């Protein structure tokens, strides 16, 4: 029921955002006026049962036990320094950009511990640029972020440098190698 409420709310909000107040009032008025003149017809229902419950997307997996976790969720181990949208939600992956975008060659880096092998890895959060910025799968963990004074440790910069487009789509989390333990 909760999902149905959320769905209904989204539908109504979506309608509100696409429709002017005048047009929605006009449509409702026409419907109400028409309703009074139409006979009540029997309606064949597709199903008498309640609609299927909307469920969350199933978890993703790398398929590699040494790379554990769900890369479409923010608590995946490589995202410890992440601030942005996860490319796994846009047709990309942890280490590739979605089709139609371009990977920025320079970016900020973090150091994350892999819980499977307990090693510290240097992670490069390359931005993917030039696609649709949908705002899906936002993830912000900020570990190791130190601000713009040290740009290579700042995840608030738009890192679409050296790319055709400087429009941000999503961020990857690519292993550069192992780091000296903290």
């Amino acid at each position, binding site marked *: 029921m909760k999902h149905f409420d959320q769905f209904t709310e989204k539908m109504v909000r979506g309608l509100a955002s696409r429709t002017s107040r005048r047009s929605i009032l006009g449509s409702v008025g026409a419907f109400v006026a028409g309703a009074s003149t139409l006979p009540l017809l029997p309606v064949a229902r597709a199903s008498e049962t309640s609609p299927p419950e909307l469920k969350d997307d199933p978890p993703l997996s790398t398929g590699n036990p040494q790379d554990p976790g769900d890369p479409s969720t923010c608590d995946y181990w490589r995202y*410890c320094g992440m601030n942005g949208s996860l490319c796994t939600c846009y047709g990309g992956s942890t280490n590739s950009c979605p089709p139609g975008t371009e990977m920025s060659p320079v970016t900020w880096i973090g150091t994350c511990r892999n819980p499977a092998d307990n090693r510290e890895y240097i992670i490069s959060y390359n931005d993917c640029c030039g696609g649709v910025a949908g705002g899906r799968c936002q993830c912000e963990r900020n570990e190791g*972020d*130190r601000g713009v*004074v*040290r*740009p290579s440790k700042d995840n608030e910069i738009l890192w*679409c440098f050296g790319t055709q*487009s*400087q*429009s941000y789509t999503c961020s990857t989390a690519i292993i550069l190698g192992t780091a000296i333990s903290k």
Partner: protein
Amino acid sequence: MPARLSLLLSTVLVANLAVAEEFPNPLPKEPIPNVQTLPEHYPTTWAFLDYSGARFELRNVGSDAHEAKGNLPARESTAALLVSTQRPEIYLADTVWSRGSFGTRTDFIDIYDPKTLTLKGEIVLPGPRGLMSPREGTFTFTDSERLGLIFNFTPGSAVTVVDLVGRKVLGKVDIPGCSLAYPTGERGFTALCQSGTALTVRLDAHGKVVGRSETTAFNALDNDPVFTSSALINKVRYFPTMQGNVQSLDLSGNEAKVLPKWSLVSPEEAAQHWAPGGWQVSATDEKRLMYVLMHPDAREGSQKIPGPEVWVFDVTSQKRVSRLRLVRPGVSIAVTLNSEPMLLVQTTTGLDVYNAGTGAWLRTLQLPGLNTRMLIQPIH
């Protein structure tokens, strides 16, 4: 006519006569076109709210009517706004591409009339501006607001110097390894550097560099870096640090002076890991008080989470004068400069307004369309 219908019509007629008696005259004709204007000097109970990419909204935060007074357009999420106190002009630094998200890039400063919010001029910049979340130091005044300074990031660093009165670009100053620009002295700026130092650049009237000086290292970038959101009081900038200290820089002269670091937290509070956090973490009454957004249980990565309290410090005595508990955690804070200052707190959904002296909650403003952290600019 059937008796029942006749009764109905009579009832309607009587009702209409009663309404006509209450409102004997129709509403007057209204002029077309009709566009609102604003005062040349905005009240200090107003503030510009940066919606980070959507618009800059001018809002009356001092009224329960919650009025939006107007908007300026932002094309890019990194647009930056400056409101002049010296002349009736508002400057908006922004970036566009000829094909929307790609094509030829143009960086520019648009100049708006504060009374009409209409465009009165434009300065095209050589670019490229640094494109990053809205923050202090990306677009600032110097030389009594005659010059504008734009921070460029390619990822090489430079500052473009613009004559805002003459409406022309004067030049570009490379600041390798350093970031942002804070007004310094009569005509100059200070940038914060990766080496932990601060670089001060002095300019002549034509925007040419006439001197550079660098402080000793003070910014512990590995463990206790400064937030770039500062409180400016009597030409001293007070920067909170990630571990709960304050690092002050005296920017009144030709060189930045590093002042002794002091702590925002007692040993007991340090044990509870109270630390600054949020986005615009500092605010000031510009006289003696510094407001800092604080959160407990600070850890690596918590430096941008919303804070449940605002702590107020007298920067002269370096003592806390009050501790304000917020009705909702805050992301960004600012203080208005009117006679009864208000503390403005952006939350994830709206803007909570408090009495800055007592901490009493006054009102909450809805911020439709807000989807990120914001920079709040109270009117001077």
